[in-house]
Every structure is written in structure tokens, then in C-alpha cells.
């Protein structure tokens, strides 16, 4: 229970990344001149790419891709340097294996960037009359660290899963094994029963949340630029939403199996995919953007990122906070109603 978040965080931290590293490329160089050699050199020393092999002819291209190790093939035509010198124009072909579409896009973009750098270097002494120089500033995350994305996301995922999943299974278990009747006969009010069931998971989740923040800070260098108290309170709110979701599911499910299945499917994959955790919501089709409105993780991630990375105050996140409060209220109401019906 305690080790899992740590492992998950480490996993997300080091494993799940879109950053390119050691991507295997093959080169079909028909010129073998100093320009092609320099371009290839630049590409291979960028840290993103690793040379797989030099190809002899174009017929092996398809085979190479089928083997499945090479992600990109770079083709230089005949007399590359000659063309560049005499006619000031030469061509490079990039063939990318797009069965992994995301990587292919990144690979081509990065390679293109390296080639453009080279051509700028070649043209450095040419008196270009009009030159626009863009200066880029990466806001909130100068080093483009991946941690800024996944630590908030991991928190949302783990808190949701521990709270909702565990709570729903725990309550459903009582129902399935028949011990629920026994508790209901006791003088305890239903509210007290539910609170009693929920409190251990509340504590556990909160502990996990703090643990994730601590690891995020010390291991991944994730800053907490905003108000920590506000952050922790929002965490409690989100845990509250997750717990009430768990209770709601337990009132609907009849067996543990159902509870678990529902929790998993209704929570895990949507939380990973529709919350903006890995894939930005703006890129999704309209329908899905609408659907993501009911995913609590989405709002929580926005809140966490705002407080931690932008250091904003309550003013910017009051909308999201309100949505979470509303969700929790609705779910508790529905659960209580259903619970009362069960009693009769």
C-alpha cells in the first residue's frame, strides 16, 4: 500500500517519456562526401540517434523496417555536395517508420531541426539582408523536464485508485460476505459506518500524496512554487471526491468483482487518458473533450500544476475547486439516497 506509489512514481519518472533517446537510424548515402558525412555526424552526436547501419541499396529498405529495429532511414542522393555547391540546392529524404506515429513525428522533427542547424551554419557568412531571429523562452520549465507533467498526473492516478478502488471493494466485500447486515443491525448510523470505512483510506491516500510530493521534490527536482497549505487542502478535496466515488460504486455493485471491474474501467483508463495527464486534451476530438469534463482528475491536475509550477494563488483555480466540491456533493447525495433505499 505504501510501496506502490513510490514504485509507480519512479516508473513514471524514468520510464514513461516521450523524449527521444538512442533511436536507431539507418543511412543510405549515395554521395559519401564531406557534407553528407558532416550531417550524419551531427545527427549521430545529438544524443537522440544511434547508427544502425549503412544501407547498400534501396531494396533493403523495406526489409530493414520489417525487422523492426530501425525507426528512420536517411537517404542522400547522388552528388550531394556537388548539388549544394553548384546549384545551391540539394535534397535529403527521411523515411520514418510511422507504425509508432508519435515517435515518428518527433523523430522527423528533430532530424529536420538538426539539418536546418547545419544549413544555417553553412550560410553563416552569407550576407542575408533580412533575417528574423526568434528567441524562445520556455515558461515554468526551462529545462523541459518531463517530471512537471507526470508527477501531478501520477498523484491524480494513485490517489484516485487507492481511494476509490479500495473503498468500493472494501464496502462491496462486506455486502458480498453478508457482514453488512450485521453492521446495519447495530445502533450505528449509516453515516458513521461509511465514515468508519472510509477514514483509513483517507489517511492512507493523504500519506501517499505527501509522499509523492516529497519524492517529486527531492528526486525529480519538482518545485513547489505556490502555497503548500493550499496544495494540501486541494489534495484532501480530491481524495474526498475519489472516496465518494468509491462509495457510490459500492452502492451500485453487488459483488467485489463488479466493484473492482467498474472502478478499474471507469477510473483507470479514463484517468490516464482523458485527464490531460499524458496526452493534451486540446488535441482530442470534440466529443472526448466533452467527456473529459466529468473526469475529476482533469481538474485536480490543473490545480496541482498551477499551484506547484506556476505558483498561482486561489484566484486562478477557484473554478476547478468549485467543480470538485460540486462533484463530491453530488456523489455523496446519490450514495446516501441509494444507501437508504438498501436499508429498506
Amino acid at each position: 500500500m505504501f510501496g506502490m506509489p513510490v514504485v509507480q512514481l519512479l516508473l513514471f519518472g524514468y520510464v514513461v517519456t516521450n523524449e527521444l533517446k538512442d533511436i536507431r537510424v539507418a543511412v543510405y548515402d549515395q554521395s559519401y562526401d564531406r557534407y553528407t558525412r558532416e550531417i550524419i555526424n551531427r545527427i549521430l552526436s545529438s544524443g537522440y540517434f544511434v547508427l544502425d547501419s549503412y544501407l547498400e541499396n534501396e531494396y533493403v529498405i523495406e526489409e530493414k523496417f520489417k525487422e523492426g529495429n530501425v525507426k528512420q532511414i536517411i537517404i542522400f542522393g547522388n552528388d550531394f555536395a556537388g548539388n549544394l555547391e553548384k546549384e545551391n540546392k540539394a535534397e535529403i529524404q527521411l523515411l520514418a517508420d510511422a507504425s509508432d506515429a508519435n515517435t515518428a513525428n518527433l523523430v522527423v522533427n528533430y532530424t529536420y531541426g538538426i539539418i536546418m542547424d547545419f544549413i544555417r551554419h553553412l550560410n553563416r557568412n552569407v550576407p542575408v539582408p533580412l533575417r528574423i531571429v526568434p528567441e524562445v523562452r520556455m515558461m515554468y520549465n526551462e529545462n523541459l523536464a518531463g517530471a512537471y507533467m507526470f508527477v501531478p498526473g501520477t498523484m491524480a492516478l494513485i490517489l484516485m485508485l487507492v481511494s476509490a478502488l479500495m473503498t468500493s471493494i472494501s464496502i462491496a466485500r462486506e455486502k458480498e460476505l453478508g457482514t453488512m447486515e450485521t453492521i446495519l443491525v447495530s445502533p450505528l448510523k449509516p453515516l458513521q459506518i461509511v465514515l468508519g470505512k472510509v477514514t483509513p483510506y483517507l489517511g492512507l491516500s493523504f500519506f501517499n500524496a505527501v509522499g509523492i510530493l516529497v519524492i517529486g521534490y527531492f528526486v525529480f527536482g519538482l518545485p513547489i512554487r505556490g502555497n503548500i497549505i493550499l496544495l494540501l487542502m486541494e489534495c484532501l478535496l480530491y481524495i474526498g471526491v475519489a472516496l465518494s466515488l468509491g462509495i457510490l460504486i459500492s452502492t451500485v455493485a453487488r459483488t467485489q468483482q463488479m466493484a473492482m471491474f467498474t472502478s478499474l474501467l471507469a477510473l483507470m483508463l479514463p484517468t490516464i487518458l482523458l485527464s490531460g495527464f499524458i496526452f493534451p486534451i486540446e488535441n482530442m476530438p470534440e466529443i472526448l473533450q466533452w467527456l473529459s469534463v466529468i473526469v475529476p482528475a482533469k481538474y485536480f491536475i490543473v490545480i496541482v500544476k498551477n499551484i506547484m509550477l506556476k505558483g498561482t494563488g486561489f484566484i486562478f483555480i477557484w473554478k476547478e475547486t468549485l467543480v470538485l466540491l460540486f462533484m463530491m456533493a453530488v456523489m455523496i447525495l446519490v450514495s446516501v439516497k441509494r444507501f437508504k433505499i438498501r436499508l429498506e
Partner: protein
Amino acid sequence: MLPVIFIVPIVQLIILVNAATLEMKNIRMVIVDQDLSVVSRRLTGKFMGSSFFRINKFTFSLNEAEQDIEANKSDMILYIPAGFEERLIKESISDLQILINAINATVAGLTNAYTNAVIQDFNLEILQDYSGTILIIPMKQIEVKSSFWYNPDLNYKIFMTPGILVILVTMIGMILSALNLVREKELGTAEQINVTPIKKIQFVIGKLLPFWILALLELCFGLGIGKLLYDLPVTGSLLVLLFYASIYLIAVMGIGLFMSALSETQMQVMFLAFFFLITFILMSGIFTPVESMPEWAIKLNVLNPLAYFMRVIRMVLLKGSGMADIIQETVYLSIYALIILSLAVWRYRKAA
């Protein structure tokens, strides 16, 4: 239970496949144009005409733009300072600023690349306009032609569909079978079966076979839906895929069996299974490429059956790789299946 097993995959395939994409479509941009010259307006126009960018607002104040980013209303700012055109003509060089919300590093990188591409395009355009006939600039150009094989439109859906299929099949193979076995233990009926003359192996096969068949059926069902909804190509041999899936399921069920032998309650098994499932899924290369992972992760993936299957299913479906190309994966997986099954059966024996 049965309808759930069939409805759920459809729902997942529809929703989740559409969600997982890095295709940049709506980069929300704020333009701070303090120059308001012919050049700056032309540049702005270029961004307005691009399908990747969506101009949220034009403003004179950089502060206002930065607040927009802080409020999450926009993703980036294009800041053209006053005197931009003048400097460009008089001093031949002028700069502008691009400010990008870099919390999502990958998206920021792509945004930067796209923005720079538009600006460079524009730069070439005005060069040709303003000094085409007067000067012949000996500037070298490299034309980069890119083509995306097996997926020319960079259709992220046919990339994700096999991935989701792997998850579904694994869930049935690993989780349902493990749960089923533990349920018997929990409810006490396992004891009754133990007293019968039926051998352990027979019991295990009897329990697992229905799920094996079910999982394979689900795979075919999912492939059918994929073809119907997303035009999922089946370039390679379906038989090869099903053959590999069969071995894969044995391996995965072995893990489920092992977990159920270790647990006393459904809750325990759930927790264990869930933990391993998430870990395996993330490390399998479904969302992010395996090559980008650190060395130790790639080595650990030897123990991850999902990683093998993820690779094979994409290779067979999208590239048409044949038996020869996946022979290594097949051998590895078969050895893995044997080992884990032996472990599981041994453990189950001792527990009873």
C-alpha cells in the same frame, strides 16, 4: 458478466483510441504585436492561416498575454516588439520572442518546432519578395522530404488500437482467471474440489481454458471493430498473430495463476494484479517508445510479456512482418510461459 466483457472493449476502443494522440491541432496562441507594421501583420497572417494554431487574442500588452498563460487560457505567446520592421530593413536582422508554456515538455518541443517552421517559411518569403531581383543571394538550401511509412497520415488511431487490444486481452487472461481461482478459495469451494480425484493439472486447465478461448475471441472481436471503425490494416498474417496470441495468453495466465496461488482473498489478488498490470502496461511501449527508456528499464522488460506482444502485434498488423521476423520474440515468450507456468503449478500444489 458476459455482456460486460464485450461491451467494455467496444467502449474502450472507441473512446481511448481517439484520445491518445500527440497530433498538434489547436495550439492556442496570443499575439502581442507592438510593431503593427506591414511585415508584422504579414507574419501574423501566416499564423492565422495555419491549421495548427488558433489565435485566441490580439493584445498590445505582454502582461495581459502572460496572464492568459497563467490562467491556462493559452499555450503560447508570439511577441513582436516595436520597431521590428524598421530594424529588419535597416540592420538586416531583427528578433522576436516566442514564449511557450513548457509544463508539458513534449508538447512544448513540438510547438517550438512548428512555430519555428512557420517563421522560417515566412523569412524565406520576404527574402524573395524584397530582394529577389536586386540581389542574388548565394544561400544554400536543403530540401527535406519526409515520408511516413505504414501510416502516411500519422494516424494515431491505428497506432493505439493494437495497444488497447493488448490491454484488453491481458485483462481477461490475467485478471479474470486469477479472480476466478481466488474466488473459489475465498468462498471455500476450492477445498471441495481438492478432495476429488481430479488432478491439479486437469483442474487448472479446466479453469483456464474458457478464459483462453474467451480472450482469443475478444481479440478477433476487437480486430473486427478496429477494422470497422478505424480501418485498422491487417497487413500481416492473422494466423501468425493468433498463434502468437495463444502463447502470450498462456504466459499471462501463468502470471494470474501464480498470483492467485499467493493470495487468500479477491482483494489481495486484485491489488497485486492491478499493480503489475499498470507497471507492465506502462513499460510495454504502448504510449511511449521502449527505446526512450533507461537501460535498466529495457533490461527489466525481458520479464514483461506485454512488451513482447505489443511489439509483435504492431509489427504484424501494420508492417506485415511474418513468422521469420518474430521468431526471436516467439522463442522468448515460449520460454517465459513455460517457466511461469511451472512456478505457478508448483506453488499451487504446495498451497493445497
